[in-house]
């Protein structure tokens, strides 16, 4: 198709890379708060139930390279996962599993979430981390660090315990996401470049039957 030739023959200079990270876990564990804390640098005054998928992003710099980190904050209620959130599992570069240390059920749900990712054919090579949130409520903890660590080990992922609300160290949440970004940067030097899209608009032709011919990998 002619437009695809256009696209590939006039490549603009490479743009910043994008790391796409999906954040999942039961409703109420603090996914929205964590992603907000990372992108906006503070705990939100008010959150609301996430319906479907919310998107947040932040540009970070690693070794002088500007990288866009996209966080896909998903709905926790089970009914949304099955048919709705699917679409967003595609092409993710990393997964952040979140549970609430004061809520044992949210920890017990983790195997189901992991299975969910497996079903969306996100293999072991996609970096995954486990985050135990709400550590400011230590006194009310229902999930011990030991148990969580064992679980994380058995799934070969690192565990981070933190608090979106008042992390002992203010940059802790940021540090966690940065760890993921570093990992991604070292792992996939080239594979993650953003597809070129010129001035931001893609030349579009009238609709044709074979849209598949479009080599738009956006």
């Amino acid at each position, binding site marked *: 198709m002619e437009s695809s030739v256009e696209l590939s023959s006039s490549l603009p200079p490479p743009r910043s890379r994008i790391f796409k990270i999906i954040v999942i876990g039961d409703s109420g564990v603090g996914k929205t708060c964590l992603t907000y804390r990372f992108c906006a640098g503070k705990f939100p005054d*008010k959150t609301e*139930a996430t319906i*479907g998928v919310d998107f947040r992003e932040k540009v970070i710099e690693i070794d002088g390279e500007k990288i866009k980190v996209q966080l896909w904050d998903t709905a926790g209620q089970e009914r949304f996962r099955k048919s709705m959130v699917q679409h967003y599992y595609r092409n993710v570069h990393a997964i952040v599993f979140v549970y609430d240390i004061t809520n044992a059920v949210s920890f017990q749900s983790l195997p189901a979430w992991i299975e969910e990712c497996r079903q969306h054919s996100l293999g072991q090579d996609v970096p995954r981390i486990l985050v135990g949130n709400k550590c400011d409520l230590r006194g009310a903890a229902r999930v011990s660090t030991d148990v969580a660590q064992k679980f994380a080990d058995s799934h070969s992922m690192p565990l981070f315990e933190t608090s979106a609300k008042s992390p002992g160290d203010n940059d802790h949440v940021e540090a966690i996401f940065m760890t993921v970004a570093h990992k991604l940067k070292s792992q996939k030097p080239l594979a993650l470049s953003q597809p070129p899209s010129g001035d931001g608009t893609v030349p*579009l032709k009238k*609709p044709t039957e074979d849209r598949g011919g479009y080599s738009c990998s956006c």
Partner: protein
Amino acid sequence: MDMRKSRSESGASPLDGGSGRHHDWDSKRRRKMAEISQALSVTPVDVATLRRMAISEGGLLSDEIRRKVWPKLLNVQMDNLPEKPGEELRVNNKDYNQVLLDVRRSLRRFPPGMPDEQREGLQEELIDIILHVLQRNPQLHYYQGYHDIVVTFLLVVGERLATILVEKLSTHHLRDFMDPTMDNTKHILNYLMPIIDRVNPEVHDFMQQAEVGTIFALSWLITWFGHVLSDFRHVVRLYDFFLACHPLMPIYFAAVIVLYREEEVLECECDMASVHHLLSQIPQDLPYELLISRAGDLFVQFPPSELAREAAAQQEERTAASTFKDFELASTQQRPDTVLRRRRKEQVVAGREPGAVPKVAAGVVAVVRPRARRFVRLAVMGLTVALGAAALAVVNTALEWAPKLDLQLFP
């Protein structure tokens, strides 16, 4: 509850005109109020007019009027309001935790100046209403966002009336969203792209290419925009509209919003993240009256029946039969007799002759249309009056629906 009142009542013109137009609007408004009172005072209540009022410019004007008209639009009897539920409602309820979590976080749905104590009281009532409806209807499943709809009713009509209105709504308009899975909801979302395609194929193709999907509109649809609009006046205005219309109207409205933003969309980077982000941030200053009339227009031009096949083709073949059951809402047991059926068929033929101007006006159809179908006709007629569209389109549309309704209602 003075608080509630002041929130969604506004004497200002919805058209934001100059003072001359303001004066115009004042007299229009007064006329409209008189018409509504008149429609309410006759026996049986003139639901057709109420529908028209709810759709047309300015909607139902005030919460005081809404308290009277919303029950009529939902065909709800007000004589046996439910008793205040007891404590047992919260014990062993599978949805209680989720409801609690969502209602606790719903602070933004309440008027900013409301004292905490009052808000907390209302939040408790909100939980009660939701659990009450769920308990009485075990076939219904709670979804996050349901609370955004219920809170709107609570704030406008108060706890007891809200309970019955919401129950009716849940077993009709919201029924598909409350299935055990969201498959039917997904199916309804599948109407979005075909509508956009009819109006602006460029926008459609751009969105397809970005693979943005339709989840950006999910919360719009299942909360009737209650989750995303911060001005309560806009929310209730839309509720007037949706309560008076076909249950798929919110998806037409969603399409209209996307189409209204066509330039922004086309200027956006063509990837999922950018387009999803752009579209999910709904502008708060949308021209609601204009968009409402456009949505009505699109509905008349591209009725669901016409889009159904394309929508189904978006995924596996499936029919959301329950969506269409809503027509029963205004129906009674009255069955069409054969004479009426035959006359209707004749009209179908007349109406379909290419280029022929049908001799039937909407008023005539009213006479021959069986009661069960009146819901359809009225909804469309309301739109028509609001939009000033030709009766021609109305007649055709209503007739096209007829076969489907026959199957649904008179097996």
